[in-house]
């Protein structure tokens, strides 16, 4: 059972791995479109008010159009190898067209994967002379037909379910949004870009598909956008403020972490967590959870499936978005300062200890070589 769970997770993550670039590129291009059209803010065609913006809006939208087909195609690829790609992409596109959204695309991809596996099994003992037919005709044509046919009943069930869930998410308010924001923020920070982070992130991205398959702005994504940004930034700011606590390597990593935080990449925190897990990990989790909870409390929505400075213009309320971010970072940095003191003692004592260990390290290394 555990093995099975692990392999299903692997299939889902393979899909996520391939669709991430589409999400990032689409999100950033769309936000540029709105950025270049700032003068037209509030206008009917906001985001397409001049040729450059309109062009960016179009290609950003195209990148988004690929999202569900790529996700589904590569889930099926993970399950059934190369012949899975086309039936999976077909299932993803049909889920999008029939308003079954992310859930439809994922379930459809699994169905497509199983159907291609079934086809492979059925044709396993065919003679060698037929293998060309198998690869060129059977898998693509029959596989696609079967996957598309499977999507008919699936969409009938998942379409309404998706609409119901979207309604539910839109109806969320107050305390439940604060809670969701805190949980998402905490999960995003928990393993800095690992499986827990990706699960929370996928949930937030999934909330962005409206019932008609178009993109919609949600508070859930707003909380993810703000809290995701704060993770690397907490480490970056801490390495600047508590300079003496960090080695030269980590101070350099801190500079990179500023950029990574601003670009919505949680991985910038990794070197810090490795060096000082007991102080850094709780701090980034609490800091990111605070940022997420605040964004939830303020009800800030985000329409792009990625946070960071590039998509900031897409937040429903930019000052409050920034405020949630700054408070989350501040909470994380202060907590980190306290925890560093608790786990390592005062700075002076630590520096002495480090000098000693540096001396003993050089002696032992000298002994080895």
């Amino acid at each position, binding site marked *: 059972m555990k093995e099975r769970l692990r392999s299903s997770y692997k*299939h889902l993550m393979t899909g996520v791995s391939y669709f991430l670039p589409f999400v990032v590129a689409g999100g950033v291009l769309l936000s540029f479109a709105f950025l270049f059209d700032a003068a037209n803010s509030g206008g009917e065609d906001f985001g397409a008010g001049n040729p450059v913006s309109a062009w960016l809006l179009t290609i950003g939208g195209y990148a988004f159009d690929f999202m569900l087909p790529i996700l589904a195609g590569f889930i099926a690829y993970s399950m059934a190898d190369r012949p899975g790609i086309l039936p999976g992409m077909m299932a993803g596109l049909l889920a999008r067209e029939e308003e079954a959204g992310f859930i439809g695309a994922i379930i459809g991809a699994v169905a497509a994967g199983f159907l291609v596996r079934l086809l492979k099994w059925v044709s396993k003992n065919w003679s060698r002379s037929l293998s060309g037919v198998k690869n060129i005709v059977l898998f693509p044509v029959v596989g696609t037909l079967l996957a598309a046919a499977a999507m008919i009943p699936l969409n009938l069930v998942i379409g309404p379910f998706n609409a119901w869930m979207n309604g539910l998410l839109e109806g969320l308010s107050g305390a439940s949004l604060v809670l969701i924001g805190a949980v998402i923020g905490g999960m995003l920070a928990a393993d800095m870009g690992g*499986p827990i982070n*990706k699960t929370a992130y996928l949930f937030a991205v999934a909330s962005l598909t409206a019932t008609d398959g178009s993109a919609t702005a949600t508070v859930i994504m707003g909380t993810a956008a703000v809290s995701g940004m704060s993770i690397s930034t907490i480490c970056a700011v801490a390495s600047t403020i508590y300079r003496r606590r960090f080695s030269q390597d980590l101070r350099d990593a801190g500079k990179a972490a500023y950029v990574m935080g601003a670009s919505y990449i949680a991985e910038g925190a990794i070197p810090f967590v490795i060096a000082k897990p007991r102080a850094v990990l709780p701090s980034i989790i609490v800091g990111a959870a605070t940022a997420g909870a605040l964004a939830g409390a303020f009800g800030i929505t985000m329409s792009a499936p990625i946070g960071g400075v590039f998509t900031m213009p897409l937040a429903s309320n930019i000052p409050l978005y920034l405020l949630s971010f700054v408070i989350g970072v501040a909470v994380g940095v202060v907590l980190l300062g306290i925890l560093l003191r608790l786990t390592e003692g005062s700075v002076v004592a630590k520096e002495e200890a480090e000098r000693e260990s540096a001396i003993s390290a050089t002696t032992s290394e000298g002994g080895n070589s």
Partner: protein
Amino acid sequence: MANIIGVSSCPAGIAHTYMAAESIEKAGRRLGHTVKMETQGAAGSENTLSNKDIENADVVVIAADITVDEERFEGMRIVRVSVGEAIRGAEQVIEKAVA
């Protein structure tokens, strides 16, 4: 002393892929083996295993949270672990691989 090769790959392909590869390579060398890890990150395949690497290898370590194409390693002994296991417990992974 064993000849270990392997592939690492994580969903985002930015950091964990490379950390897993590094951690396996370090632990393997510490235990006296030769190790070559191919990374399949967002940049595609790097430190790619050559046919010769594969021919000479005793065991393959796949450290991945996503599906990795294993066609190249057909008939070889393959040890599969998650990226997390490779980063945190690389020595156990190596021990498992050469056992």
